[in-house]
């Protein structure tokens, strides 16, 4: 038991939890925005991969780190646009289109990476984002190392949570997005374009998702690997339901996952390996399913989620 307490009381553990949660925060915020407008975006797994690859490659080709972040967001926006066009004006199945975008974005990213670097055994590295050293704050006991010695992208993620909550609940734009996800014909009767709002929202949400991928190659690691996204996108889809489509709860959900993941790694090294490592690796997925079961009954789905809207049709 003391080992468990030791783990939970170390600043290092909480720093790791926030670090692991960062890509999930980007992903779940992006997914949440899309779903608030009524579009399920299962392209997320591929958009993560595209963001990771595009951001990394831009920096490798000589762009600055923030330039890489921008390129990643553009890549995400582009794949989001494909998904938006297929599902909003064309009204195709959001499930199948999302899977298609995931397959397309993943294979295109891998293909480009392999074509640009045909015979590399170890992936080339870039100078990734370093943890900020904020003068006073990072020297605070415990909170300093846990919260303030993170890379800039983590702060960007936290900022996006607040910004998303503000936009969704405090601005006319947010009202329009939520209305489009709940009752699109009411929006149309106000003279607003459902298509424009949905497409714009999906593009923006996808750009944010891609930043989660960019965090992987430009902050957590300094290179691109095959299979590096490894299901994080799907976990974000589950987290969105868990969060009941609310940014604050999304942050909490992502942090819980980060904490759990950081905890299991430490527990494994402390307690030893009489339990196979795969059991721990399964946990995030099992927890996602458990979370879905727990909240399913009271899930407050955006009412028009998955329902295509056609102009002039009820």
């Amino acid at each position, binding site marked *: 038991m003391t080992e468990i307490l030791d783990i939970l009381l170390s600043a290092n553990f909480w720093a790791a939890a926030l670090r692991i949660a960062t890509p999930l925060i980007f992903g779940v915020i992006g997914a949440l925005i899309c779903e608030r407008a009524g579009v399920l975006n299962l392209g997320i797994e591929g958009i993560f991969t595209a963001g990771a690859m595009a951001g990394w490659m831009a920096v490798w080709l000589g762009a600055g780190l923030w330039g890489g972040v921008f390129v990643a967001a553009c890549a995400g926006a582009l794949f989001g646009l494909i998904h938006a066009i297929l599902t909003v004006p064309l009204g195709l199945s959001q499930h199948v289109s999302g899977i298609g975008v995931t397959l397309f974005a993943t294979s295109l990213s891998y293909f480009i990476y392999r074509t640009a670097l*045909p015979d590399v055994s170890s992936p080339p590295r870039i100078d990734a984002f370093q943890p900020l050293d904020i003068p006073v704050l990072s020297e605070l006991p415990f909170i300093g190392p846990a919260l303030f010695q993170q890379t800039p992208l983590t702060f960007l993620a936290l900022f996006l949570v607040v910004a998303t909550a503000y936009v969704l609940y405090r601005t006319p734009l947010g009202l329009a997005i939520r209305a489009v996800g709940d009752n699109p014909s009411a929006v149309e009767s106000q003279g607003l374009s459902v298509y424009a709002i949905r497409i714009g929202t999906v593009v923006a949400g996808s750009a944010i998702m891609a930043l989660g991928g960019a965090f992987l190659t430009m902050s957590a690691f300094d290179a691109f690997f095959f299979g590096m996204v490894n299901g994080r996108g799907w976990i974000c889809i589950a987290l969105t339901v868990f969060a009941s489509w609310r940014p604050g709860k999304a942050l909490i959900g992502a942090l819980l996952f980060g904490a759990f993941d950081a905890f299991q790694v430490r527990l494994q090294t402390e307690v030893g390996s009489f339990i196979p490592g795969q059991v721990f690796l399964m946990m995030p997925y099992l927890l996602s399913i458990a979370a*879905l079961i727990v909240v399913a009954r009271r899930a407050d789905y955006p009412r028009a989620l998955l329902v295509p809207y056609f102009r002039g049709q009820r």
Partner: protein
Amino acid sequence: MIRFEPRGPVPVSRVLLVSVAAAVAALLLAAIPMAFAGLSVFGAYGLMVKGAFGSMFAFTEMLTRATPLILTGLAAAVAFRAKLWNIGAEGQLYAGALAAVAVGTGVFGGPSLFLIPLVILAGALAGGLVMLGPTLLKTRLGVDEVVTTLLLNFIILLFVQMMLEGPMKDPMGMGWPQSEPILDEAALPKLMARMRIHWGLIIALVASLGVYFLLKRTVWGFEIRAVGENAAAARHSGIPVTATFVRVGLISGALAGLAGVGEVAGLKGYLTADLSPGFGYSGIVVAMLAGLSPVGVIIAALFIASIFVGADSMSRATGVSNYLADLMVAMSLLCVLVAGLFLRFKIRFVGAPSAKETAK
């Protein structure tokens, strides 16, 4: 301005035409990444055709590759018919393979007449049982099956890795995480000498006809289609919707499980964690290209398999990454989605009302 006008029932010939058009469009689009990689497009396609059809060996390799794709394609097609979004064929495939290895590597002895059906049954059952969980969660608690089936893919693959490094590891495997080999009596026989093509293909073809018969000629099939068209209306007219979803889930999972059986008991002979290069996900493309028709699945699987086998061979000859094949398959899915619009709608290009008309 583009307007969509819904169509009535669609003739089969139009479904076929649209799928072929989508496949051609995908092949044309794939010329862009090919050119980007510095290939001559005609040369590359020539190499691909040769790689998939150029010799008896190439052709049988293509059929071998198509075998699991027919089964995972059927798994997706039958589930999608009921609007049960089973995205978990990959995991169900591994579950089927694991079960096949569990009963086929020496726990039970006996003649082929006993062992082969046992292996097949175990694999189908395991795949079906995996799908039972998400289906029940959907029908009882309203948990979205897309997410649960997807997450199960990861869980099952990790479970397979755990078994292969633990209880089911082959002690003679030189330390590699792989299962013991399937007994000769439990293995699916080869169809031709010195080729890898095996009886799994026959199983896949029979399964296609079986699903066709189920959907077209049975009460269950009628119920499946009715639930897919409108679950609320089906419930209203007295169709047991929950039971239908459970049946569809079991059938879909079992078909994907059979794909796993074919790969271990027919092809590889033992189980490794890299048994499937994404057959479950490619199955979704196969099903969509086939317009969810069980017989169309065979043709679509042959198309996808020839892309994979052809691109592998082209990749070996030119040194261009074989991720090109995955890219072409993904493009096929997107193209068939767009092409599907022509099935459901008449598309009219309508000029915006001009000022003169508005004035009238």
